[in-house]
C-alpha cells in the first residue's frame, strides 16, 4: 500500500469563495513558534451540513475552529463566510459575523460568576431589543431544548461535566445562529452522556437547520452526527467524504484512526 506521505493530497480549494455559501477556508496558514500547525489549508463547509473534523491531538483542529471565527488570526490565508471575507474585517463587522455563529467550547467555558440562565441570556441581554421577560423566556426555552430547565438558577460549579456541555450548547443556540462550532463536545464524558450529547447535536441540526462543524476524536460520535468526515493531518485536510465512504475507505491514515491503532502510518512518538 502507498505510504500516506506519497499519496496526492485532495484539492479542496474553492474557485470562487465570494459567491459560495457556507464557510470557505483558503490557504490558511498558522504557526506557533517554529511549529507550523496549519499549512495552507483549503476546505469548504457547505450550508446545512454537519462536518466532523478528525485528527490527532495537537494537529490543529481547535486552531482551525478558532480561525473560522477569528478568535485566532492567521499568518496567511482567508476565511469566507457566505461569500464575505472575514479575515480583513474590523471589530464591528466581525462581531456582526459572529452573531451568526454559536460555539461550544471544550470545557464549556461558562462564566463562573453567573447562573446558567444568565450565561444563556447574556448574548441576548447585550444585543437583543426584546424585553427582559422575553429574554428570560428564550433562555428557558434554550435550556429546555438541552434538558436543563431545572438547572436555570444553578451556578456552573454546581453542574456535572455533561450538564456544563449542555448549558454551553444552550448558550450557543440562544441567538439562533446559522452555524454551530463544537470543540470536542464529548471529550471527558462517559459513553452514555456522550451519546446524549450526540443526540442533542442531531436534534439541534434537525430543529434549527444549522451548519455544524464538529471537532472530535470520538469515532462513535463522528459516525453518529456527521454528514461528512474530514481528516486533518500535518496542517492540511488529507481526506473528506461521507460517513458511508469513510467506513469503506482503504486510506491508511483513516483506517488507523478508525481502528484506534498505535501501529500504522501515524506514529505515536
Amino acid at each position: 500500500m502507498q505510504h500516506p506521505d506519497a499519496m496526492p493530497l485532495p484539492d479542496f480549494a474553492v474557485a470562487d469563495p465570494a459567491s459560495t455559501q457556507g464557510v470557505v477556508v483558503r490557504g490558511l496558514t498558522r504557526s506557533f513558534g517554529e511549529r507550523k500547525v496549519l499549512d495552507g489549508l483549503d476546505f469548504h463547509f457547505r450550508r446545512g451540513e454537519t462536518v466532523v473534523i478528525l485528527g490527532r491531538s495537537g494537529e490543529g483542529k481547535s486552531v482551525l475552529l478558532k480561525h473560522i471565527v477569528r478568535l485566532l488570526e492567521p499568518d496567511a490565508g482567508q476565511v469566507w463566510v457566505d461569500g464575505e471575507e472575514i479575515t480583513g474585517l474590523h471589530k464591528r463587522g466581525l462581531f456582526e459575523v459572529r452573531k451568526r455563529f454559536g460555539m461550544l467550547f471544550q470545557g464549556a467555558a461558562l462564566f463562573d460568576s453567573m447562573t446558567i440562565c444568565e450565561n444563556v441570556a447574556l448574548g441576548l441581554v447585550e444585543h437583543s431589543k426584546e424585553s427582559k421577560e422575553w429574554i428570560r423566556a428564550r433562555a428557558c426555552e434554550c435550556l429546555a431544548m438541552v434538558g436543563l430547565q431545572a438547572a436555570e438558577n444553578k451556578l456552573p460549579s454546581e453542574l456535572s461535566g455533561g450538564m456544563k456541555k449542555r448549558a454551553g450548547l444552550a448558550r450557543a443556540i440562544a441567538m439562533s445562529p446559522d452555524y454551530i462550532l463544537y470543540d470536542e463536545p464529548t471529550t471527558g464524558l462517559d459513553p452514555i452522556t456522550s451519546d446524549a450529547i450526540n443526540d442533542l447535536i442531531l436534534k439541534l441540526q434537525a430543529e434549527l437547520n444549522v451548519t455544524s462543524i464538529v471537532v472530535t476524536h470520538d469515532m462513535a460520535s463522528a459516525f453518529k452526527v456527521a454528514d461528512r468526515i474530514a481528516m486533518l493531518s500535518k496542517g492540511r485536510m488529507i481526506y473528506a467524504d461521507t460517513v458511508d465512504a469513510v467506513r469503506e475507505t482503504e486510506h491508511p491514515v483513516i483506517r488507523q484512526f478508525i481502528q484506534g491503532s498505535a501501529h500504522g502510518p501515524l506514529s505515536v512518538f
Partner: protein
Amino acid sequence: MLTLVADIGRGVLDSLASAGRGSMLLVTILAQVPHLWKMRRETVEQMHVVAVGSLPLVVTTSIFVGAVTAVQAVYQMQAYVPMKFLGTIISKSVFIELGPVLVALVVGGRLCANYAAELGTMKVTEQIDALEMLPIDPMRYLALPRFAATLLMLPVITVFADGIAVISGYLISVSTLGVTASTFIEGLRMFYDPADLFSGLIKSFFFGAIIAMSGLFFGFNTKGGAEGVGNATMMAVVGSCLCVLVADYFLAAILFQVIFD
C-alpha cells in the same frame, strides 16, 4: 559574556514590547469610555469590590501608619523641635506621601492579584473567547468597569485612609506619648494646606490607573494553565508595586513644581 549581553538585550526588548502592548491596552480601554454609562451596573459592582472589599485592609494599615508616624516623629523631635509641630508633621507626611503610597501598595496588591487571577483564569478556561463569541467586547465588558472603578475609588479610599491615620496618630500621641490634645490640634491647623491633600489625591488617581493596568495587562496576557495564572498574578502585583514607587518619584517632582511653587 556574549550570552549575558544577549540575555540583557532580550530582556530589554521584551520589556519594551510589553510596554508597547500595555500602552495599546490603555488606548483600547480609553476608547471604550463612551460605553461607561452602559456598563454602570458592572462598574458599581467593581467599585464595591475596590472600596468595601478593601476596607479592613485600609483601616488596619492606616491605624498603624498613623501610630508609627506619631511614635517616630516624637522620637526625632523631642530634643530639637517643639511638640506643637507634631500634628503638622503627621498630617503632612500622611496627606502627601504615606497615605497615597501605602494605600496604593496594599490595596494595589489586593486588586492586582484579584484582576490578574480572575481574568487569567477566564483566559485559560476560554471564558474570554466565549465572551468574544457572544459577541461581547472583553475590553468593554471586563476591562472598562475594573479600570474606571479603580481610578475613581482609589482617591476615595485614600481620603478615608488619611483621616484614619491622622486620628490614629492623634490618639497615640495623646494617650501614650505625653502630647496634649490642644498641642496636637494646634499643630494640625497651623500649617494645614489643602494643596497637600489635593496632591495626594492626584497621586492616588495615577496610582489607580497603574494598579488597574497592571492587573488587566497581566490577566489578559495569561498563558498556560494554573502555573500561568500564578505567574500572571505575581507579575501583576510586583509590576504594580514597582510602577507605583517609580511613578511616586516623578509625580512628587512634578507636583512640587506645579502646586507648591
